[in-house]
């Protein structure tokens, strides 16, 4: 079947099998390998992307279901050479180690900040509770989101 969708602001049309998962469409068909796959059961969240601005686990979405919708992946976070504040926050606060869960974490956290620019630590933990990081122990991820929050607020005030 043919599917057409917007991925990181670019329209793409491809011939696919109906059963193809969105995560495999992004990775294997479009070679956008920043989105990862980590489990079979929607538990790990390494595959989180946005579907029309909402974080979804792309291992649980058929590529066909994304037809006619807008998808954004980690490759679409930075604005050219400038990192998104959430990316800079993860860098400044050591919010990543192996980097495998990081794209999914950042997509969730960016979406959180868009809805709630000044989240509490508890709200940040709640937001990422559907995702697993095996390296960081989460404290530095919480700090990373706080960093982005503080710096975005400062940028607005300027």
């Amino acid at each position: 079947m043919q599917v057409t969708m917007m991925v990181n602001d670019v329209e793409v049309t491809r011939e696919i099998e109906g059963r193809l998962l969105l995560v495999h469409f992004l990775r294997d068909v479009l070679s956008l390998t920043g989105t990862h796959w980590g489990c079979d059961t929607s538990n790990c969240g390494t595959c989180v992307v946005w579907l029309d601005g909402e974080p979804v686990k792309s291992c649980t979405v058929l590529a066909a279901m994304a037809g006619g919708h807008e998808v954004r992946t980690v490759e679409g976070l930075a604005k050219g050479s400038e990192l998104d504040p959430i990316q800079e926050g993860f860098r400044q606060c050591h919010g990543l180690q192996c980097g495998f869960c990081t794209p999914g974490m950042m997509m969730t956290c960016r979406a959180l900040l868009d809805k709630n620019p000044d989240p509490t630590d508890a709200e940040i933990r709640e937001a990422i509770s559907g995702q697993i990081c095996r390296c960081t122990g989460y404290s530095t991820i919480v700090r990373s989101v706080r960093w982005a929050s503080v710096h975005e607020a400062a940028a607005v005030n300027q």
Partner: protein
Amino acid sequence: MTTVEEPKTTTFDDNDQTPVGFGRMLRKEDPRLLRGRGRFTDDVQLPGMLHLAILRSPFAHARVVSVDTSAAEAAPGVKAVVTGETLKGLGLAWMPTLSNDVQAVLATDKVRFQGQEVAFVVAEDRYAARDALELIDVEYEVLDPVIDVRRSLEPGAPLIRDDLEGKTDNHCFDWETGDEAETEAVFARADVVVKEDIVYPRVHPAPMETCGAVADFDAVEGKLKLWSTTQAPHAHRTLYAIVAGLPEHKIQVIAPDIGGGFGNKVPIYPGYVCAIVGSIVTGKPVKWMEDRSENLISTGFARDYIMRGEIAATRDGKILAIRTNVLADHGAFNGTAAPVKYPAGFFGVFTGSYDIEAAYCKMTAVYTNKAPGGVAYACSFRITEAVYLVERIVDCLAAELDMDPAELRLKNFIQPDQFPYTTKTGWVYDSGNYEPTMRQAMDIAGYAELRAEQAEKRARGELMGIGISFFTEAVGAGPRKNMDILGLGMADGCELRVHPTGKAVVRLSVKTQGQGHETTFAQIVAEEIGIPPADIEVVHGDTDQTPFGLGTYGSRSTPVSGAAAALVARKVRDKAQIIASAMLEVTVADLEWAKGAFQVKGDPGKSVTIQQIAMRAHGAGDLPEGIEGGLEAQICYNPSNLTYPHGAYICVVDIDPGTAQVKVRRFIAVDDCGTRINPMIIEGQVHGGLTDGVGMALMEMIAFDEDGNCLGASLMDYLIPTALEVPDWETGYTVTPSPHHPIGAKGVGESATVGSPPAIVNAVVDALKPFGVRHADMPLTPSRVWDAMRGRATPPI
């Protein structure tokens, strides 16, 4: 919350551009990972690449009667179907494990654990490969499995390893350490003896990236290129040469970015060999990536020690001796990756951080119908089990003596003037200063206040617990005189090349899986040679590009390879000094090093920078007598001893009396890993390990039913902590450098995984004191805690 080194939210110092190496520095590897530009094994896409999927046994123990692949071979998109019989014809049906056992690549005679590899399909895409697995018809004759490790040696128990000649039972190996008679004598005269059965259940490292490989065999060149999820690319290359008979110089193993390892990516798995065979058979590049269930049921598990701990002491709390008897479940094949002469890894450090008179351990290891593995999950070669045993049994003693567990530990520590300290099991602790570390943890925790709060709460019927653990690790394997893996000495090479413009490249034999080697190794070299870390490229994970060495596991990168990096930089610096003396027309002895430049003693105005020296080393004009052009060196570092980091951990838990749910309220970790290269990265290593500890203590277990079905085969069943199960970590540090390591560093990658589980369990047991509980086995799930509160024994595993 008190967190030492919590970064300020407004300013971030970054010494990337300065010639001073040590200190907080943002990571060089982050920009690509943050942009989704990392390159993990599953990201590798090659022209014409095919996909491989593995058919696995549904049974724990069964004879393979027949395998019919005809329907699968006829399926759309299928390029090859390979069975154990096919491999047998190639002499590849079995492969050596890292501990001198053998393991089936694909089963020929029997399957010996659920999830064992039986056949594989190579097809045009991953979906087609999976579809074809359904079409392979395997006839099994189901046999009784050995699941209960305690019954594995009973007469009449089903024989698992009938492939081994002369094997008549499920015995794997025996091991002992210490002095049995002397220990018995000390126990006989002790005032107090405490005994406890302690189980460290089977757990799994479960890195977020599963294991996989892309094999590309070029038949014309005879060259195999293998991208794989390996923590030890050089050791793997040598083993492929031995297993497959390929010439070693025609094998290139590339470990690209790795999505977490924790020991899971040390062994060679059948899947890697299958990918190689698949590429040879089809003449195309072949990718194999296991799914999560395959990862959990078939790759290297960890722990699975059933321990009886005994401790002898005087009435006033002087520990005299520790004794233990261990039954070790090694699964169907002995797949541990410990040094050959250490079949129980470094479990011998079970005497902990205490100055005692005698110790003895007897261990029996057995085969069962479970997945192979053993040493994995950030365990420092079984030190997790050793530290859990000693720290749990010391707490049992404190309960028996009605003594504060902190006080009991402080009373028995090895004292600073006793180092180097030889333990009763023969380990030489290089350095340590335990009391300040313990005191700092107690200060951060507010220990006295916590005890007061606990007393108040207990009076109200609330369940609050405070748990302590104090650990000493032995890391940095190891001296080649007594440590090797399959005959390969555990030394590590390092090469440093300074380019004419003063930029440098350093090549390592070890391989990061998230520990930040591209940053810390640049810092080590920078500290020694004065070139800013930003100007130093770290190359690793490619056997064609890097010197030989045993890889990254057992916290060995900084102790071994880090030492190599420091020494190779000093070697280059020594040469630079000779060239500088010619440039400044003084003798070598007249020069002194000033972080990035050599200057004339007493005349700092006369100096040349390392960059100027590098240009001279490559430039026109004569060099001093006997000095070749270029500015580079290589080294192979053989450590003279292990390094012994230590730490003090305090955990505070609250238990809901209505649900028996344990909540870790606070966790304080004070680590001493010697010289600190990058405090930010050290803190990250500690945080991650503490989270592992919460997982093991409260959630994680790979259990089996009586038929050998794995009950932890997905992340819905094998529970890993999320951000909601862990507190905001509180850390501190002390610094006791290693006297034999060139920069005094000791390694920290596994400290927290080793040290945290006993602190958490001790806290839970402490909270349950009103119920008369002295011990409860991990994982302390609500149902287990509920049982403990009602005096019911934890069901055996």
